[in-house]
C-alpha cells in the first residue's frame, strides 16, 4: 500500500488524500508499532533469562542421576520421575537425621506464623501510637527504633544469644520467634507509622468525638482502612522470615532448624554422591512458599519488596 502511495501520479495522490480520515473521536489503536515490538521483545528475553534456571531445576529434579551425568541440562527428562521429590520431602538426610525436608517445613511454619503475627501486631500498634498519640519523647523513641534498622544484625548476635539464654529460651522455637519479632520492629513500625500518618487526623478526631478510645479507633476505624498496608507487612514478613537462615541456625536448636537450614544441610553434604535431582527438588520446595505468595498476592508483593528494600 505504501509503495502505491509513493508513486507520485496526481490521481494516486488525491486518492490517498481522500482515504486519510480527518482525526475525530478516539484515536485508533495501533497494536504493532515499533516501540511495542521492541518493548515486548526485551520483556520476552528478560523473562526467558530469568526462567531458564528454574526450567533447568525442574528438569533436573525429574531426571535420574545417570541421565544428569550426561550433561544435557536443557534437555527434558527421558523418563519423568517424581521419586526425588518424594525423597527430598520425606527421607533426604540432613546430618544425622534422614526424615527429609518436611521436618524443616513444619519448623518454618511454626517459626513464621507466630513471628509474623506478633511482629505485625506490635509494630502496627507502635506505628499507630507514634503517628497519632504523640507523647513526650515519642520522636526520640522513634529515632532510636529506626536507628536500630541501620545496625548490622551480626553485631547483635552475641548479645542476643546471652539474652535468650538468660530468658531460658535459647535453642527453642520461641527464641527464633522472639528474635524475628524484634528485628521486624524497626522497619514495620516505620511502615505503619508512615501509612497511618497519611490518614487524615480529622478522622481520628471525629472518632474521638464519637466516643471511640485508643483501641476503639485502632480496631474499628484504622484497621479496616489499612488492609493494604497489613497485606504488605504480612508478605514482607513471611518472605523475610521464611528465607532467614542466620537466626534459624543460631537460635532454633538442632531439632527446630527451619527449612532453609535443612536445605543447606542437604545440598552442602560433603560425603557420598551429590544427588543433584534431590537437591533441585529440595530447593524448589523451599522456595515454593515465597513463590506461591508472589503468585497469589501480585501487586502487594511488589510493594512489600519495595518497602523491604530499606531493610538491606
Amino acid at each position, binding site marked *: 500500500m505504501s509503495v502505491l502511495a509513493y508513486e507520485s501520479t496526481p490521481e494516486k495522490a488525491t486518492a490517498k488524500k481522500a482515504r486519510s480520515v480527518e482525526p475525530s473521536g478516539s484515536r485508533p489503536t495501533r497494536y504493532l508499532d515499533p516501540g511495542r515490538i521492541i518493548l515486548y521483545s526485551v520483556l520476552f528475553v528478560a523473562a526467558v533469562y530469568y526462567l531458564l534456571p528454574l526450567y533447568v531445576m525442574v528438569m533436573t529434579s525429574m531426571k535420574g542421576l545417570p541421565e544428569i551425568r550426561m550433561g544435557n541440562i536443557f534437555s527434558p527428562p527421558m523418563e519423568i520421575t517424581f521419586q526425588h521429590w518424594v525423597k527430598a520431602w520425606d527421607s533426604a538426610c540432613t546430618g544425622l537425621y534422614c526424615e527429609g525436608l518436611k521436618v524443616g517445613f513444619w519448623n518454618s511454619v511454626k517459626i513464621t506464623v507466630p513471628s509474623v503475627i506478633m511482629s505485625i501486631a506490635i509494630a502496627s500498634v507502635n506505628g499507630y501510637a507514634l503517628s497519632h498519640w504523640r507523647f513526650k519523647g515519642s520522636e526520640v523513641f522513634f529515632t532510636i527504633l529506626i536507628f536500630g534498622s541501620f545496625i548490622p544484625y551480626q553485631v547483635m548476635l552475641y548479645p542476643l544469644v546471652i539474652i535468650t539464654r538468660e530468658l531460658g529460651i535459647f535453642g527453642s522455637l520461641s527464641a527464633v520467634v522472639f528474635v524475628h519479632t524484634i528485628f521486624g520492629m524497626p522497619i514495620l513500625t516505620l511502615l505503619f507509622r508512615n501509612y497511618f500518618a497519611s490518614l*487524615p487526623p*480529622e478522622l481520628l478526631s471525629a472518632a474521638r468525638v464519637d466516643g471511640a478510645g485508643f483501641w476503639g479507633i485502632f480496631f474499628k476505624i484504622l484497621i*479496616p482502612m489499612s488492609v493494604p498496608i497489613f497485606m504488605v507487612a504480612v508478605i514482607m514478613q513471611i518472605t523475610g522470615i521464611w528465607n532467614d537462615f542466620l537466626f534459624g541456625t543460631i537460635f532454633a536448636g538442632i531439632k527446630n532448624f527451619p527449612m532453609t537450614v535443612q536445605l543447606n544441610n542437604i545440598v552442602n553434604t560433603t560425603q557420598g554422591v551429590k544427588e543433584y535431582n534431590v537437591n533441585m527438588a529440595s530447593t524448589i520446595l523451599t522456595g515454593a512458599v515465597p513463590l506461591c505468595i508472589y503468585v497469589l498476592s501480585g501487586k502487594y508483593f511488589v510493594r512489600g519488596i519495595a518497602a523491604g528494600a530499606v531493610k538491606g
Partner: protein
Amino acid sequence: MNSIEIKKLGLRFGEVEVLKNLNLDIHDGEFLVLLGSSGCGKSTLLNCIAGLLELSEGQIHIKDRNVTWEEPKDRGIGMVFQSYALYPQMSVRGNLSFGLKNAGVPKAEIEKRISKASEMLQIEQLLDRKPAALSGGQRQRVAIGRALVRDAEVFLFDEPLSNLDAKLRTDLRVEIKRLHQRLGNTMIYVTHDQIEAMTLADRIAVMRGGKIVQLAPPTELYNKPVNKYIAGFIGSPAMNFLKGILHGGDQPYFIVEDSKFPLNGYEFDGPVPEEAEAYLGVRPEHVVIGAEAEASVAHHSVEVEVVEPMGSDTLVWTQLCGQHFRVRVDGQSELKVGDTLEIGFDPSKASLFHAQTEERL
C-alpha cells in the same frame, strides 16, 4: 444563661503561644462565628472546646459544667469537619450510628434518631451507600447528620463548607441556618469567609494572633469595626482608606491633601485628639454618585480608571485626592474608562482609625 464559658484560656505548643488569656461567653442557642485568616487560632480554639486539644491554662465550661479535663465524647458536643472525616469503610448508616453504638444507645433509639436526622437532612435514600459513592455536598450532609444524631447541646463546625464549590456552599449555608432555627442549639462555626460569617452569625468573634479582636453582631462589626484590620476584612468589596490628618475640637474635620471633610456628627470612641495622622475608612457601597452626590457633605469629581461589572452592581476604581478609591455603583450604569464621575459620601458615617495604632477613633 450561658451555654459555653471560656475562662482565661491559654494554649502553648512549646515556646509558641497560640492562644493567650482568651475569655468568651456564648449564650444559649446562639450562633457564634469564629472568623479570621488562616493561622489566627480559630480552629485551635474550636478544637480546645471540643476537647481534642489539651489546654495549657484556663477552663472551659459547657452548660455550667467544667469540662476542662473531660474527653470529647463526654462534653455533649457534635462536630463537623472541613474534610467531612467520614469513616470510609462504613455505610452512611454506619457512620451515623458509630457514636451511638459506642455510647451504648439501644438499637431502637439509634434507628429512631437516624431516621429523624436523615429526614431532616434529606439523606434517607443514601443510608446504605459508602461515603466514596457520595458527592461533596452529600458527604457534608452526612457529616452534619453524624453530629445531629448525638443530640448534642453544642454543635461545632470547623470550616464545613470550604471544600465545596461556590453554589453548593451558598445552598448548604442556608440549610445550616435553617437547621439552627429549627433546633435552637448553640452553634460555634469557624470560617475564614466573611460572607459566611455575616450571613450566619448572631455574633461574630474576629480573631487575630490568638486573640479575639472584636466580638459583636454582624451589623456592628460592619458599621463600627474596632480597628483597621477588621474594617478591611469585613465587607466586600473592601473598605477604602484615605490617609490624612484629623483635626479635633468642636468642629472636627479631616484633611486629605487640600480637601477638607467635615466630621460633624461622627461618634468618636474616646477623647478626640487635637491633631493626629489617621485613616478615613469609607465603604464603596456608601458612596453615592450624580445628583445625590452633589447634595452630600463631601463631594468630589473623579475620573473613572477601571470598571469591573459584576452584574448586580459595578465596581469603579478611581483616585480621590491622589489615593485609590473604589466606588460601587448600580450594575446598569454605563460608565466608561475616562468618564468623570461626581461622588459623595457622609464622613460622619465613615470610620476613623489612628495611623499608628490602627485603632478606631
